[in-house]
């Protein structure tokens, strides 16, 4: 155990911050306090990341305490490279979302300060879910995360918020139920009297049991991710959620699904995972193409962005289940990059919608002429959505496809058609909203203000910098992914022709 319990501190600061904010009477003060707390968490997370040694032990900053000793439940947290970058993603996105949501909670059913307190509660849970190394603790965070998000959609969302919130909750609870059964069964079958993840690796050997338990976890994660065909809650939830909540929902919460597949489905049930691979790869490829085609046909900006995410999640799950180092590292990097990319896309779309009061593409036109900065930010966000080289998303998409091709050539080729479809859905949306003659209804639209520029600038800077220098993140991710794949007992296919000297 390290001297400083970093992970508990991160969660503790968020929770205490949430408590404090909820007692503040003044809304403005509550917002400022939330921003302050989330920035503090970010600083702490950055310090923690700097202290992480990529080539040291797999799990670092470990803390383990008994929670329910009778059932071997622990409060056990620690991070490997994969969990670390996802926690960092959360810590970066929250202050940006706070700043972006400055006026978003004013028409909500509940008070403004509650919204911001919920954001901090959610942050604590997002950190917890990635940090948990006790499977039961992971399950608790996995389910508990739903609560703040449910209220953020249901109380502060758009016209159809109740429908969307309930659909989100029911879908998630259904998956969670299956996972709970699988978690408890895993405990029994393993017979280690412990829920600690490292002790459960390799504990389930019977092939049939593995398959059943795998399915319990996998379906929950597939709904969360979401994987085709259990995706239909996402467009509703993302379209109805306030833009900031949509960012955290699609940018971080959904990643718990793909993260869970990599961490739990593959490592705990390696044989079952290999058994399921053909189906998962097929569903992923369908998701890539289907999500993109349906995105092209959307008339609502936020739903369009949500469907692009379904396409992108197809890439991530394909990369995870291709089980090569390049593909799985690429998939992990994709989780981070997609968070930033979709984040900025949702936020800029949110700014646009806030000004015009409509989510429909047809209500816009020629915005570039009156609000060039807003249009420019929208374009860069869109270009990262279509994985333009030089922006971060390209690196991860390229790695996923490159690594998948090594083992599954045909799915990789079909998946690559996604790059053509992405160009269509992004640029057509951009053309209809930003280009052409300026529509009368947007003629008076104001360009980005100072606060909004501070929201957009850091995300764009991150997308560009990581587009050219992904190495710092990959150096952290690669060793962790390699250790995961060792536990799955797979090795990368060797090149057909050995060219490098010394091989």
């Amino acid at each position, binding site marked *: 155990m390290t001297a400083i319990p970093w992970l508990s501190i991160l969660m503790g600061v968020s929770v205490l911050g949430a408590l404090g904010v909820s007692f503040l009477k003044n809304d403005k003060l509550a917002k400022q306090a939330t921003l302050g707390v989330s920035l503090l968490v970010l600083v702490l997370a950055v310090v923690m990341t700097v202290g992480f040694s990529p080539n040291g032990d797999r799990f670092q900053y470990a803390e383990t305490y008994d929670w329910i000793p009778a059932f071997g439940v622990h409060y056990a947290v620690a991070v490997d490279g994969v969990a670390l970058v996802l926690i960092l993603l959360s810590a970066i996105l929250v202050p940006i979302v706070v700043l972006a949501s400055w006026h978003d909670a004013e028409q909500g059913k509940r008070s403004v300060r509650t919204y911001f307190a919920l954001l901090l509660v959610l942050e604590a849970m997002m950190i917890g879910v990635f940090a948990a190394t006790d499977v039961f603790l992971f399950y608790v965070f996995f389910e508990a995360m739903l609560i703040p998000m449910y209220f953020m959609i249901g109380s502060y969302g758009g016209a159809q918020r*109740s429908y969307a*919130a*309930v659909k989100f*909750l*029911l*879908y998630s*609870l259904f998956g*969670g*139920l299956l996972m*709970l059964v699988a978690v*408890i*069964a895993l405990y*029994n079958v393993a017979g280690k009297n412990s829920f600690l993840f490292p002790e459960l690796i390799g504990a389930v050997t019977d092939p049939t049991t593995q398959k059943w338990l795998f399915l319990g976890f996998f379906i929950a994660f597939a709904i969360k991710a979401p994987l085709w*065909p259990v*995706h*239909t809650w996402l467009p509703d939830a993302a379209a109805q959620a306030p833009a900031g909540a949509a960012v955290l929902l699609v940018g971080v919460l959904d990643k718990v699904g793909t993260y869970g597949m990599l961490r739990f489905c593959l490592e705990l049930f390696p044989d079952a995972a290999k058994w399921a691979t053909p189906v998962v790869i097929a569903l992923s490829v369908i998701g890539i193409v289907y999500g993109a*085609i*349906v995105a*092209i*046909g*959307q008339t609502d900006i936020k739903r369009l962005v949500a469907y692009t995410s379904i396409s992108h999640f197809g890439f991530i799950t394909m990369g995870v289940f291709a089980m090569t180092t*390049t593909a799985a590292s690429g998939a992990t990097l994709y989780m981070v990059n997609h968070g930033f990319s979709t984040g900025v896309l949702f936020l800029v779309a949110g700014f646009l919608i806030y000004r015009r009061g409509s989510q429909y593409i047809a209500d816009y036109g*020629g915005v*570039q002429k009156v609000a060039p900065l807003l249009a420019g930010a929208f374009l860069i966000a869109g270009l990262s959505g279509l994985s*333009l*080289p*030089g922006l971060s998303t*390209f*690196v991860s998409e*390229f*790695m996923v*496809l*490159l690594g998948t*091709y*090594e083992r599954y*050539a045909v799915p990789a080729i079909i998946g690559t*058609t996604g*790059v*053509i479809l992405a*160009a*269509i859905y992004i*640029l*057509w949306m951009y*053309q209809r909203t*930003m*280009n*052409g*003659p*300026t529509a009368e209804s947007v003629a008076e639209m104001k360009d980005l203000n100072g606060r909004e520029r501070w929201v957009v600038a850091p995300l764009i800077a991150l997308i560009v910098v990581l587009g*050219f*220098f*992904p*190495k710092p993140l*990959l150096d952290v991710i*690669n060793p962790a992914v390699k250790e995961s794949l060792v536990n799955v007992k797979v090795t990368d296919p060797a*090149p*057909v*022709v050995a*060219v*490098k000297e010394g091989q």
Partner: protein
Amino acid sequence: MEPAEILSHTGGGAISLAWLMIVLPLAGAAILLIGGRATNKWGHLLGVLMSVGAFVVAALVFLQLIGLDPAQRRQSVNLYEFIPGVANIGLLIDPLSISFCLLITFVGSLIHIYSIGYMSHDPDRRRFFAYLNLFVAAMLLLVLADNYVALFIGWEGVGLASYLLIGFWQYKPSAAVAAKKAFVVNRVGDFGLLIAMFIIFAQFGTLQYAEVFPAASQASQGVLTAIGLLLLLGACGKSAQLPLQSWLLDAMEGPTPVSALIHAATMVTAGVYLVVRSGAAFFPEGSTAGLVVTIVGVATLLAGAIIGTAKDDIKKGLAGSTMSQIGYMMLAAGIGPAGYAFAIAHLITHGFFKADLFLGAGSVMHAMNDEVDMRRYGGLRKLLPITFVTFFIGYLAIIGFPLLSGYFTKDGIIESVMHHNAILGWLAVLGAGITGFYMTRMVVMTFFGPKRWDEKAHPHESPAVMTWPLIILSIFSVGLGAYLILSNRLLVFLGPAVGQPAELPGFHPFSVPGLTTLALVAVGAGIAIAKYGRSEVPVVQPRGSFLTVFARRDLYGDALNEALFMRPGQWLTRLAVFFDNRGIDGVVNGLAAGVGGSSGRLRKIQTGYVRSYALSIFVGAAVLAGAWFVVGTL
């Protein structure tokens, strides 16, 4: 002779600083875009400075390179690790890349200077220069990369610049649509390039040229052909070759300097670069992939020429011509080492004379209130003397008038192809004849005959900042071809990079194909003069025969794309959206309703009873889990 080995650069000199070539214009673009309106006053000057700076660096690198022994002239400079285990960012300095660098930065700088005048009345001139700088940076990365991933960054980077510049006047719907079309069609090509990279990586475990090229011969024939054809698909997208040609004519929506720089002189030749760069490995002499390259090339050179014959829009006429001339380059690149030097030589001379022609067309448009219809020109030679003379030199160069640039380079292509495959060679000769027709038609309609413009136009010669670039380009259009071809200068220079045929070709001015070409060009020009010079040109486009309409409509390329891809795609999209809303979601909602008992119950749930519902799920879960627990422990 095989290409020389790629060495790691060790010693300093300009080669160590070659990265500045890319960074200078990139910095220019960043400063102008981030600096915003504050840089409006001097933005164009910064843009020019950065482009000229890149040229100076390129020239210094070139000087250092020719000082080296030919076997030492391929050096790779590693800059940094990009994707660990997959790719670095590094530059390959060799005769091929430096030839491109000189062309891009020199012609690019002239076009930057010209744009100061051409865009002087545009309120967004600064943004224009930012995009031009971005283009130059990306194009240099494309040709300088020492591996396919870095090439691809430049490859899509020039695509982005092209998108931004075609759509520069984005408030025009036609410009916005053309920009999007260019990007999407290019992505179809990039799909091929991506798959090619996946195969290369799976085969060789690397994407570095230095490692892939020497090992290529160890891969199976089928794999090599597949890689070659997929690279060709990428090349077709970027270079507007059949079947991915449709975007280039629409791309003329961009400001004319863009058409000159990106859609004539440099970016559209990137496909030729890709084929020549990968040639020894994936398009060797006599290979299937190489054969397909030549077929694509010859088909496009004829199609582009035919399209060029029917256009009344001066820029679209030139665009058809660009397609056609790149077809010549592709054709030569497909035949192997015997053709590489001629492909590149024609690429370089075409870069000069086509830029000259486009900028000349821009100068005419500048004089004519942006009118592009040649039916409304006529008799401009006296009012625009400098533009006329420079355009006329470019015209002579492109039709292959003896001793001008195009004469040497196009003749080189025809001769070398003729040795390789006589049918392809004679088709190339036929293309030259059509070129003679459409270019003469263009010159006659624009500069000769009676004036056909209306009273509002007041044609005037362009300012010096625009005419000087024209003069310089036309000087190169005269002399460059002879310099590159005579005594096989370019061929020997490129040898270490692309290989050399065992027997050096001589220059045969009086061969049968050469004389036939000249005769056909004369016939084409004569028909054009008879048709457009001797009789009146109607101001309104006549209906035209079936063949004329066929050419006017770009050989129905767009109609074909719409019928094959766009309409089925729209139909598929509507189906998918419907299926998603009614099909999948319908099933889900139906299931939920079923579980809830009735749809009325569901509505209740949706209006606030969710907590009890959630509770019931938890209870259910607990019961199930408990049951399992009991069963498990028994």
